[in-house]
């Protein structure tokens, strides 16, 4: 039985409440006229894990962490959005799911989340970055246990690769200023996009909010204003992390932490009595040397265990290059069910970091980025534009047999023009400005 509450207020008492209320509102409005610096809210934390993806305890004998998982895609998902939500790089998720369209995958498809990693063959101390796997591992010893935090990274391009070797964290900076190197300034000038000599903290700063400066001059581990670049060879040699990942790493990494940068495309690890092989693309010049090392290790395992490796599976794994641990030798007669079991992860309601799509308004400016005959082409283009850094909202509007890619809404003509210029410089898209409906 519900209690009925009488909300009627006597009229004279209402007047007594309303007058001071209006007075307070007026004061607040006056205060609002002054310009106030808006401090951006703190970065939201990653939602609760449905599957472990970053932090693991490891025993001395453990060679691998995590477990593989699958997830069913929903309409509108892109692989970069799924990757970011599960702290994976674009390259990792794409490699593990060959044939799945990165930008317009089919809804209902079950894809693999490669959250199972063989640890690189390196001292488990400080930061270890395996360039071949595009993954960073941070080892921290606590009294009796060892924990490892792992994150996907973006690394240097082929022209400007991240250097291999030892270094340490020299200093840490929150909200760093980017001092534009001469070579980058020149390249941007040639593109018709001149850069200032320095870029202050903010959405246009490619270093993001946190930076670990290494002892090796000009090389940093930093955040990014282009989260979709994580898992790509897109930097000038630095190591990039998702904004939420660099914040975690920054908080837990003291100055003087050693940093070991390696490139190990072929990883061998033992988990629950099974030997696994994980294959990434090698650097071409190192391929033969890396393969020799791999075969030597595998022969050694055969010798020690007196068991035959499945060489057919080794060949297949080397050919496929999927970046996921594949079993090649079973050491025990009865294999215990453990981490190698694939778990199905429930699709989250909203993917962390996925681009926001503001509501359309006839009073705003837009850019007609392109018109396609093919709906998939249009959807792909809209997704790519939406994942630029800083993000540019874009969507597809169908008209008869054509599909228009519309970027926006933008509040004013200047913003629309600046964005059109970005589209031209970064994506070679010739956008057409669309004025607001009331011609403001």
């Amino acid at each position, binding site marked *: 039985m519900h209690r009925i509450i009488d909300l009627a207020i006597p009229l004279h008492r209402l007047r007594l409440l309303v007058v001071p209320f209006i007075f307070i509102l007026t004061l607040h409005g006056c205060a609002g006229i002054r310009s106030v610096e808006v401090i951006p809210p703190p970065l939201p934390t990653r939602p609760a894990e449905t599957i472990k993806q970053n932090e693991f305890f490891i025993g001395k004998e453990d060679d691998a962490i995590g477990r593989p998982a699958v997830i069913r895609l929903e309409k509108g998902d892109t692989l970069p959005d799924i990757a970011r939500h599960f702290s994976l790089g674009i390259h990792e998720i794409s490699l593990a799911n060959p044939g799945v*369209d990165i930008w317009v995958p089919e809804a209902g498809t079950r894809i693999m989340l490669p959250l199972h990693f063989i640890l690189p063959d390196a001292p488990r101390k400080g930061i270890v970055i395996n360039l071949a796997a595009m993954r960073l591992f941070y080892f921290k010893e606590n009294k009796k246990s060892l924990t490892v935090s792992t994150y996907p990274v973006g690394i240097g391009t082929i022209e400007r690769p991240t250097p291999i070797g030892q270094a340490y964290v020299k200093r840490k900076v929150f909200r760093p200023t980017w001092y534009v190197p001469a070579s980058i300034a020149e390249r941007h000038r040639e593109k018709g996009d001149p850069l200032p000599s320095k870029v202050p903290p903010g959405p246009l700063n*490619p270093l993001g909010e946190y930076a670990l400066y290494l002892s090796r001059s000009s090389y940093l581990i930093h955040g990014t204003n282009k989260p979709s670049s994580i898992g790509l060879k*897109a930097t000038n040699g630095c190591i990039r992390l998702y904004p939420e990942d660099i914040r975690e790493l920054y908080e837990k990494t003291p100055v003087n932490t050693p940093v070991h940068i390696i490139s190990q495309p072929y990883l061998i690890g033992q988990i629950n009595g099974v030997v696994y092989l994980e294959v990434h693309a090698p650097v071409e010049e190192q391929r033969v040397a890396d393969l020799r090392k791999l075969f030597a290790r595998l022969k050694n395992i055969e010798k020690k265990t007196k068991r035959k490796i499945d060489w057919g599976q080794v060949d297949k794994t080397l050919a496929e290059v999927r970046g996921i641990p594949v079993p090649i030798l079973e050491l025990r007669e009865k294999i215990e069910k453990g981490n190698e079991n694939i778990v199905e992860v429930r699709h989250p309601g909203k993917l962390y970091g996925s681009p926001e799509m503001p509501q359309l308004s006839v009073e705003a400016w837009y850019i007609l980025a392109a018109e396609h005959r*093919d709906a998939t*082409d249009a959807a792909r283009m809209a997704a790519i534009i939406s*994942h630029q850094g800083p993000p540019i909202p874009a969507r597809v509007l169908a008209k008869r047999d054509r599909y228009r890619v519309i970027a926006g809404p933008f509040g004013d003509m200047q913003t629309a023009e600046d964005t059109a210029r970005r589209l031209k410089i970064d*994506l070679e898209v010739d956008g057409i400005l669309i004025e607001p409906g009331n011609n403001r």
Partner: protein
Amino acid sequence: MKKSFLVISSLIVFALALAGCATTADLEKVRAQEREINAKADQALQASQDANANALKAAETAARAESALKAAEERAKAAEERAAAAEERANKAEAAFEKSMRK
């Protein structure tokens, strides 16, 4: 004379009658045979026409099948070309995206 004429006439009539009887039977036989042969001829003709029609049908069917096969091959080729073009467009878009991710 008259008597002889009568006898001869009777004999002739008798003979004719006998011959007529024989002829009718034969005629009937012949007619029956004719009818049978006609029926068989009809059958043969029908069979021949059927065979011709079937042969024609088979030839037409074969021609249609060949035509359909050719059309299917052309459609498959066109689909293959469209898929290749779509893949090229996707690769180009991906390359543009990766370039845009640089500093």
